[in-house]
């Protein structure tokens, strides 16, 4: 056996596992061969990657994916809710709270009686529009270095993606727990952290905080009932008030608890009971007395927790909503806009972008929807 044959033999033995290798005989034989003085250094290099001077082992790290996003990247609230243009600096709408001021049956009169005139009851409401914006930039040196280093990513696009993720995160946070109407509110209160430039989200509008205490949103605290029963109860109340709840937002913890409840119950949890949330994404549905609720679990912490007023327990909400009475109202554009700032404008060698969206949340009929409070987990 010449040197080349031995080389090929060793390579083959290293790559192929023997059918039986009792006592690690193969590695012992190779080890013995390796130690023999007749084995040339060039061949030992095949087995030795510890030296940095042999030049035999090079690892092209730059050809591997190097970016891993370690945060929640799905924002179903923003994706699912309908979007429509705002009709002004704030979006204004009028609620018809009653079709008539009389009691039931009051339109019945005698044959020659005087016809009673009446009117409906109206209530003007407005919804603030917030400006969500973030600036992003990458130096020209960074852009060039990454490109010439061979790494398979573009730092410009990565930063723009980060900026959009930040906006989507903040918008979902505001949609869920924003507070622009109850001054002094904090993160741990039902009102939510007050921000005069923000918008009012589900937590406050569907809760019992000062500015929204009289809007007849349905609120139920879970005690003896489970999540299935509570959601069906709340949705039925919303339907009884005139709406038709169609969707429930909840944390993934709550969704997990719901799924656990269904483990022995196929009636409301069969594979057939799913609905398409957004194109290509199906979620489970829960049947109640007058329709179905699509159940959407929200990853991340945008749902948040707070201290319940009644007993100071730390709770989280599940919202059941009537989507026909909810709309994301926007100014300028219904999605994110990216402004590219001319390079060098501020005398820094960089590329800069401003990503923004102006939007608010119109919850036009709080009495058709509401919240379930459960202990935070």
């Amino acid at each position, binding site marked *: 056996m010449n040197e080349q044959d031995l080389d090929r033999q060793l390579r083959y033995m290293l790559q192929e596992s023997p059918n039986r290798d009792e006592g690690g005989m193969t590695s012992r034989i190779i080890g013995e061969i390796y130690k023999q003085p007749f084995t040339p250094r060039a061949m030992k290099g095949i087995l030795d990657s510890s030296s940095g001077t042999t030049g035999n082992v090079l690892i092209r790290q730059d050809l591997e994916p190097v970016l891993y996003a370690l945060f929640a990247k799905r924002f179903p609230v923003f994706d699912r809710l309908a979007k429509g243009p705002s009709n002004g600096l704030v979006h204004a709408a009028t609620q018809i709270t009653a079709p008539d001021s009389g009691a039931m049956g009051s339109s019945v009169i005698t044959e020659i009686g005087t016809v009673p005139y009446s009117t409906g009851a109206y209530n003007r409401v407005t919804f603030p529009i917030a400006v969500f914006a973030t600036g992003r930039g990458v130096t020209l040196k960074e852009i060039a270095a990454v490109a010439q280093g061979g790494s398979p990513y573009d730092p410009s696009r990565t930063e723009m993606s980060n900026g959009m993720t930040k906006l989507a995160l903040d918008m979902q946070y505001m949609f869920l727990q924003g507070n622009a109407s109850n001054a002094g509110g904090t993160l741990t209160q039902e009102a939510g952290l007050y921000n005069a430039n923000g918008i009012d989200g589900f937590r406050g509008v569907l809760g*019992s905080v*000062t500015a929204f*205490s*009289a809007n*007849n949103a*349905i*609120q*139920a*605290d*879970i*005690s*003896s*009932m*489970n*999540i299935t*029963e*509570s959601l069906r*109860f709340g949705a039925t*109340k919303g339907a009884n008030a005139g709406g038709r709840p169609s969707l429930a937002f909840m944390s993934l913890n*709550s969704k997990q*608890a719901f799924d*656990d*409840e269904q483990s022995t119950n196929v009636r409301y949890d069969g594979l057939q009971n799913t609905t398409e949330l957004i194109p290509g994404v199906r979620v489970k549905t829960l049947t109640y007395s007058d329709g179905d609720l699509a159940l959407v679990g929200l990853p991340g912490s945008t749902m948040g927790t707070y201290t319940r*007023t*009644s*007993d*100071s*327990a730390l*709770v989280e909400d599940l919202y059941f909503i009537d989507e026909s009475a909810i709309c994301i109202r926007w100014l300028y554009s219904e999605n994110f806009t990216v402004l590219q700032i001319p390079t060098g404008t501020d005398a820094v060698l960089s590329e800069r972008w401003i990503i923004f969206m102006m939007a608010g949340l119109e919850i036009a009929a709080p009495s058709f929807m509401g919240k379930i*409070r*459960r*202990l935070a*987990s």
Partner: protein
Amino acid sequence: MTTGKDKDLEGGVAVAEKPVDPTIKALKHTELVDDEPYTVLYGWGRVPLGYRQYVDKTLFENGVARNVLGQTARHWLKGTRPDGKTDQVYGKVTIQAVLPNTAKEEHFVGITGIEIMPTEKFAAMLAGVDLDAVVKALGEKKVRSLIEGLSSRVPERRA
């Protein structure tokens, strides 16, 4: 459940007309009879006037639910499901007190741990009180009741 008749007993702070009946006390879950109605306090004195919410399927107004069956209240106190089990319990409310159904607002005060302020201190505090806030907290009916209660105790001014 709340009835129209019971509404007179609810909301804000009570205006006691006579000494509180000391026999009305908070009941333990072992003292409750399954099919007897009780008054349950949950958030009374903490929630704002007009606060309406459900605990499970029972409506609480201003932190008070009337005519709650004993078996329901017992499960709230014990944190159990209607079948008595503790699996699939994802919520728990801390009930302030379960009382006999005849309990009135003046009973709620001591039972929920609210200490009656000494009269002299209360009188002094009135000098700095925000009357608008008081009206908002008490509600129109309670305010009128307070006015009438005070007026009846003040001799009529002679011309």
